[in-house]
């Protein structure tokens, strides 16, 4: 059949063993893209959705109209959060490799996407993260300790052991519960924003998903509802080029930006250098102002690269060149911000080393504290009876009965294992 076939199959620039090739990535020079007023008509954002908003140039200088003009303090704060995110990721990744947690997802190479956005938004703005936005949590001051307890499903887990690792949430910090189902948070964020508008609040909502997830219906519904009701929401597509093993071309990225979907449906679109802390901060601020002022939603495509494996269940060397990231044209977001601070004379190697040491030892202490609340293998352990709570607000009769059945089952088992001397089920 194939020979005659006229089906187009998206091309993948480089597979294992081949030379990395990023010629397909359309780049603009730093400072080259204009920054329109926040009330710009959607039509006039068509080119913004094709070009690439960049602020940091090759020499680490901030140039052009999108320079957010942040203070050194803020920049150092950004560097700190991005480093914290990376170190947290590395440590938790190793922890999973040691079998102490069941699963982990790193955001290596994408730290600016989350950290810069969180810093550009107000604390009262509601965030709807994907599983690769841990930077949002850390930048909003979520203690790594709390996140570690979730990863361990231990007695201090905010999810009471119900969620896979990395599916954090924090109602207090306005960080929505992460779902294992891709893209579902997108229309929810729009609904949240519609409610804010209905009430007349000035808070905005922001949501994130990967470029692969834009294929899901929820992405379409989100854009449409945001357009129809002019919802105060920022819809972020994190284009890290890969969806597990699937190249972004299979999500529609061939010769077309994801940001272009915005103007297509009738909301503003911005294509942004996702590894440029300043560009992400500036674009997010612009979209937030636009939303707050009642001019509606913005779709932001953040062009970045998934430098690591999809998750601890994945091995990217099976489907892409090992040295891909070294050739990625937009570099490393942490390194680029560090360099900018150095260029400004606001940072140096000593301070950098000191920061690393401080963060490392803090994380080490956090982990020590976290495991004290239990791990998969060592107690203390959450009471399995918790399994039946929160299905409904009140425990219904049939779940009360099942809870008793489980108790009987575990008693029987304890008896049995006591005899056979096998206590592997733990406490």
């Amino acid at each position, binding site marked *: 059949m194939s020979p005659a076939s006229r089906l187009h199959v998206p091309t993948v620039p480089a597979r294992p063993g081949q030379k990395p090739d990023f010629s397909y990535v359309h780049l603009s020079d730093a400072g080259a893209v204009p920054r329109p007023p926040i009330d710009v008509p959607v039509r006039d954002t068509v080119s913004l959705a094709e070009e690439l908003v960049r602020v940091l140039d090759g020499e680490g200088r901030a140039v052009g109209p999108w320079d957010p003009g942040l203070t050194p303090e803020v920049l150092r704060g950004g560097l700190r959060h991005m480093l914290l995110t990376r170190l947290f990721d590395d440590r938790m990744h190793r922890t999973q490799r040691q079998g102490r947690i069941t699963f982990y997802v790193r955001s290596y190479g994408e730290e600016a996407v989350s950290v810069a956005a969180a810093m550009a938004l107000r604390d009262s703005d*509601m965030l709807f993260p994907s599983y690769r936005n841990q930077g949002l949590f850390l930048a909003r001051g979520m203690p790594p300790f709390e996140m570690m307890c979730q990863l361990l499903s231990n007695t201090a887990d*905010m*999810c*009471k052991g*119900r*969620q896979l690792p990395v*599916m954090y*949430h*924090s*109602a207090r910090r306005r960080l*929505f*519960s992460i*779902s294992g*189902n891709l893209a*579902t948070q*997108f*229309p*929810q*964020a*729009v*609904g*949240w*924003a*519609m*409610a*804010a508008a*209905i*009430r007349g609040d000035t808070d905005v*909502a922001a949501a994130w998903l990967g470029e692969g997830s834009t294929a899901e*219906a*929820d992405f*379409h*519904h*989100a854009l*449409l*509802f945001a357009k*129809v*009701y002019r919802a105060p929401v920022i819809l972020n597509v994190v284009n890290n080029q890969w969806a597990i093993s699937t190249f972004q071309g299979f999500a529609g990225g061939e010769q077309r930006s994801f940001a272009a979907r915005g103007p297509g449906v009738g909301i503003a679109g911005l294509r942004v250098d996702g590894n440029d802390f300043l560009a992400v901060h500036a674009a997010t601020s612009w979209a937030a102002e636009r939303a707050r002022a009642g001019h509606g939603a913005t779709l932001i495509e953040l062009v970045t690269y998934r430098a690591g494996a999809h998750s601890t269940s994945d091995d990217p060397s099976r489907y892409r060149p090992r040295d891909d990231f070294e050739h990625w044209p937009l570099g490393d977001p942490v390194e680029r911000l560090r360099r900018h601070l150095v260029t400004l004379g606001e940072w140096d190697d000593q301070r950098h080393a000191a920061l690393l040491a401080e963060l490392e030892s803090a994380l080490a202490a956090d982990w020590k504290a976290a495991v004290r609340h239990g791990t998969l293998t060592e107690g203390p352990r959450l009471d399995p009876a918790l399994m039946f*709570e*929160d*299905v*409904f*607000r009140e425990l*219904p*009769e*049939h779940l009360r009965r099942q809870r008793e059945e489980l108790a009987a089952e575990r008693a029987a088992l304890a008896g049995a294992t006591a005899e056979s001397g096998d206590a592997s089920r733990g406490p």
Partner: protein
Amino acid sequence: MPRMNMVQALNSAMDVMLERDPTVVVLGEDVGYFGGVFRVTEGLQRKYGSHRVLDTPIAEGGIVGAAIGMSVNGLRPVAEIQFADYIYPAYDQIVSELARLRYRSASDFFAPVTIRTPCGGGIRGGQTHSQSPEAIFAHVSGLKVVMPSNPYDAKGLLISAIEDDDPVIFFEPKRIYNGPFDGDPNKPAVAWDAHPAGEVPAGHYRVPLGRAAIVREGSAATIVTYGTMVHVCLAAAAELGVDAEVVDVRCMVPLDIDTIAASVSRTGRCLIAHEATRFGGFGAELSASIQERCFWDLEAPIARVAGWDTPYPHAFEWEYFPGKPRVKLALQALMEVA
């Protein structure tokens, strides 16, 4: 007391809640200016504004997704899905998100969303305007599932659903919107005025979720049913002269199995009737649960009467619909078991 049909009773429930709770909003396809294809939201937008009674795009998945987000931001959305046959595009948002948000976040987030949708056949709607998909929601942990059989219950249950902090799938048997229906399409239509349950208080009242109702007392057998079939079963029992107790389930989740099982244990015989396709329908769960609790009291096998295991065919509506003939044959057989 005012007399209302089911459409008016449901409309009144939303009117009352929009009035007393500023966080209640109504959304759906054609529900606003137009008042809904079955007129259930008639007049609500005029009264409460286009910001609390919203016309939406034709995207059931988007409607539920947005409703979840609204509810997380402090509103109590009442979403209408125009026909239960069109709820499937929203199935992922309902099953993966609405039903499990409270659980996965340990109650830090929850979604008090009510989804209203007309269900059932008998209106010549063919395969895509006649379905009763309650079973595929009752199986999902975290959803409450309701189906009223008369105006009084409809209003009281809808108010309870809207006030409930858990998500509720609220099925409205459209064949009985305007009057009770005993299953005979050739009889002149009856209105709700004559019916005691057509008396509906104008104001706020609740019918609690999770309680079945014994709508006819009897000692010879128990008929467990809900929705339109309640009226069909009442008529069948009466015509056969069988002293059957008829239990209106009203709420599939949480299920009032105690009331149901107590009745079956008393009568020793049980017939389950619903309009949905039989195989894997909610009747299966009823039969299994009843059997587990009443085994030793059963004098005959528990019988099921339901729609056939086919789509709902336009031309054979009355051969598909589990009307009086089917119920009577089953009830007769049930009583004949020595």
